[in-house]
């Protein structure tokens, strides 16, 4: 099934003290089917750029993505 993509982009800033690379990568793997992710590893933060977001999750993907990372950190 072809999913409808949203042209809207989103950028997420995650501070390195709170979020770790392993959890961010795990979240990207999990959400890969819903959007295109690009993770930039900067000095004190991760910058996650989200593009081609699936229309059905356009409003919540950013927040759900953050929640997933936090859960991953706690359980990982």
């Amino acid at each position, binding site marked *: 099934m072809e999913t409808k993509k949203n042209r809207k982009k989103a950028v997420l800033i995650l*501070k390195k*003290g*709170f*979020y770790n690379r392993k959890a961010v990568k795990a979240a990207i793997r999990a959400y890969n089917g819903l959007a295109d992710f690009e993770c930039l590893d900067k000095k004190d933060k991760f910058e996650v750029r989200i593009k081609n977001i699936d229309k059905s999750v356009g409003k919540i993907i950013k*927040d*759900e993505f*953050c*929640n997933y990372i*936090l*859960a991953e*950190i*706690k359980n990982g």
Partner: protein
Amino acid sequence: MEKFNFEKDKIKIELNPKIYPLEAVLGAAYFFLDKNYVYLDGNLNRKIIVQIKPKDKAKKNTLEDLGNDFLNKLLHYNLRYQISKNNRKIREYIVGTALLSAIGEAGEEDDWKKDFLDISTPWEEKYGNEKK
């Protein structure tokens, strides 16, 4: 003191990391993930900012209650973390002793299984073809 800031549909709580360690904040945040969106920001050495946004649209009163609930949960996790930190050595000692004693039990052979008189070996194997 913790500070609440209200924005449209979310609450921002500022915490002092010297009072509330990150482990406690993560524990409390995890508890709230079910019904809220939680986002962490700030600086680990100066100020931790926890942003909570309910998945269902919320009123300001509800947001304040949510903030207070979070602080209660944070205290709970802080206490758990402190106890866990203080008891770490004794916990490791108990587990280590238990594991060591378990290894000892598994390695020892019971006396009744030992065949001191070589009774289990058949006559033929013991004496071969010797004539009686």
